[in-house]
Each structure stands twice: as structure tokens, then as C-alpha cells.
């Protein structure tokens, strides 16, 4: 662009001898392009005025059918996905309930076991206490017997000499 400006400036000053071969070519091209530009305009106008082709009617019908089909499929897929999600939710709820039930059952059975063990221990303790009482009673009985035997010996005036 700068070259053509330089060439045009030389031309306007009449300095033809100063024009380089490239600048001469540029000027010739530019002079030609005045006509060329007019022709280009004609090409553009003819291109714009060119008869257009029309799409066939069946194309619209086919595309509309495809549109309906695709949207129906999309809706079906969405419904499927939501029902699948619903089933998943139900399954999860069942699992949670089952888990809760199992936990409760486990906790409950453990308490019962503990209770029975406690009862057994209690019973055992009770029996042990009875035994202790019996033992105590036994001890007391033997002590009484001893004391009584001591009384017997004293009453019988038996003296025992220890050397």
C-alpha cells in the first residue's frame, strides 16, 4: 500500500524516470483495477441476483418428524432416569430400614443376653449367700458343740494335767 502511494506520488509529480520496475507494475495493475473494480461490482451484483435453489418440502416434514422423535426419546430417557432414581431411592430406603432393624435386633438381643447373665449371676450370688449362711451356721454349730463339750468336761470334774 505504501509502495503504491509512493508510485502515485512520483506519477503525479511527473517523475516517471524515478519509478522502479516494481512501481511501474504496481501502477499498471492499479490502472487496470479501475475497470476491474467495476467488473467486480458486476460479479457481486450478479452473484446476489442469482436464482436461489429451494429446499424440497419433504425435507421439512422429515426434520419435523425427527425433531418429535428425538424429543420424545429425550423425555422417555429422562423419565427412565427419574424412575431408575426412584427405584434407587426405594432400594436405599429398604436397605436403611433393614440396617436399622438389624442394629435394633442386635442391640436388643445383646441386652437380653446381658440380662440373663445378670439374672444367673444374681441367682448364683443368692445361692452363694445361702451357702455362706449354712457355713456360718455350721461354724456356729461346731463352736457350740465345742463349748458344750467343754462344759461336759468341767461338770464331770475331770482335770487334765498338762506337763
Amino acid at each position: 500500500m505504501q509502495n503504491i502511494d509512493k508510485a502515485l506520488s512520483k506519477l503525479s509529480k511527473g517523475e516517471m524516470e524515478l519509478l522502479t520496475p516494481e512501481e511501474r507494475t504496481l501502477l499498471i495493475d492499479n490502472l487496470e483495477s479501475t475497470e476491474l473494480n467495476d467488473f467486480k461490482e458486476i460479479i457481486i451484483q450478479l452473484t446476489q441476483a442469482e436464482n436461489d435453489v429451494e429446499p424440497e418440502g419433504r425435507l421439512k416434514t422429515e426434520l419435523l418428524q425427527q425433531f418429535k422423535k428425538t424429543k420424545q426419546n429425550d423425555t422417555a430417557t429422562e423419565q427412565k432416569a427419574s424412575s431408575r432414581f426412584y427405584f434407587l431411592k426405594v432400594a436405599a430406603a429398604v436397605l436403611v430400614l433393614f440396617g436399622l432393624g438389624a442394629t435394633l435386633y442386635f442391640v436388643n438381643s445383646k441386652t437380653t443376653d446381658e440380662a440373663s447373665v445378670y439374672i444367673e449371676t444374681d441367682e448364683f450370688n443368692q445361692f452363694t449367700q445361702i451357702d455362706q449362711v449354712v457355713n456360718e451356721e455350721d461354724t456356729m454349730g461346731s463352736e457350740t458343740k465345742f463349748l458344750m463339750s467343754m462344759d461336759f468336761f468341767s461338770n464331770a470334774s475331770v482335770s487334765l494335767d498338762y506337763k
Partner: protein
Amino acid sequence: MKQEFDKQQLTDEKLVVLLNKGDEEAFEILYDRYAKPLLNFFFMKLRSKEKAEDFLQNLFVKLIEKGSQFDEQKVFRIWFYTLAHNQCKNEYRSLSRSKVEYNNIEDNSLVNNWESSSERIDSSIFSEHLNLALNKLNDDQKSSFLLRFKHNFSMKEISEVLECSEGTTKSRLFYALKQLAKELKEFNPY
């Protein structure tokens, strides 16, 4: 009836939102707005109406299936044309289509039968020549030319569709027009 009127007034971006929610009418309005210009976009690039219709169908199927990927903050027209342009680009990549097709056509036969005169420019013959000339351009130059002069996109919009700078778009347009003028010189009245 009132609702129908309202929907016709809605912007493309709002219609896409409705479309994603399954609104059939929104889809229909978008189809009516874009089917014809996009069919012509494909047709000018692929030079086959059947192929262009296949591409158009694929493009709208993408809109049905992946419309949710559209960012509402962006311009729908640019997003949709970017998809269309990329579809053509992939086609060219996989088949090197433009070259193969162009080479298969005896383009000179038409040119040789044509007498250069501005008065005798026949739109149908010009159209055929224009298509042939367009196919000599590379894909980006062709898209730039069609988007600018056939679909009235701004330079900025073209840059967004083709994912390049505005400067690149301008230079592509310049070279596209230069090349077209060269290819169509038989029609030059000057």
C-alpha cells in the same frame, strides 16, 4: 394465535432456547429462516443440490441433537454458519472434493461458446461460470465471498465464522474477487 405471532417476532437465540425445551414451532420458525440461505450456501460450495440437501438435513439434525450446546450469549447465525462451514471443510478434507469435481468438468467448453459482450450476459450461463470459478478458489476464499456477497455477513461476522482475523478476511475477499474477475474475464464488458 397470539402466541404464534409472538414466536415469529422472537430472536434466533430465544427460539433455540424454546427448541431445546422441545418446542416444535420454534424449530419450524428457525427452519423457515435458515433452510433456504443455507441450502444455497451448501449448493454454491458443493455444486450438487442433492449433496446440499443432505448437508442441510445433517445440519438441522445437529441443531436438534446438539442445540443445547449453543451458548445463548452468542449469535446463533454465526454459530450455525460455523457448523455449516466446518461440515464443508470436513467434506473437502475427506474427499478433496473441490479439486476432484472441478477437474472432472470440461469448464472451457462453456467459455469457448461464449461471445464476450455485456449485452449478452445470460444469468444462467454466468451462474454456471461463476460456480466453476468459485470452485477454483480455496475453501476459505469461497466461504468469505459467499458469506459477504450472498449472505450479507459483515467482515467481523465472517471472521468469527471462519475463525480468523478481520485482516485475513479482507485479504481473502480481495484475492477471491481478483481471481473471479480473472476467471470470468469473458463477461467483462469493459
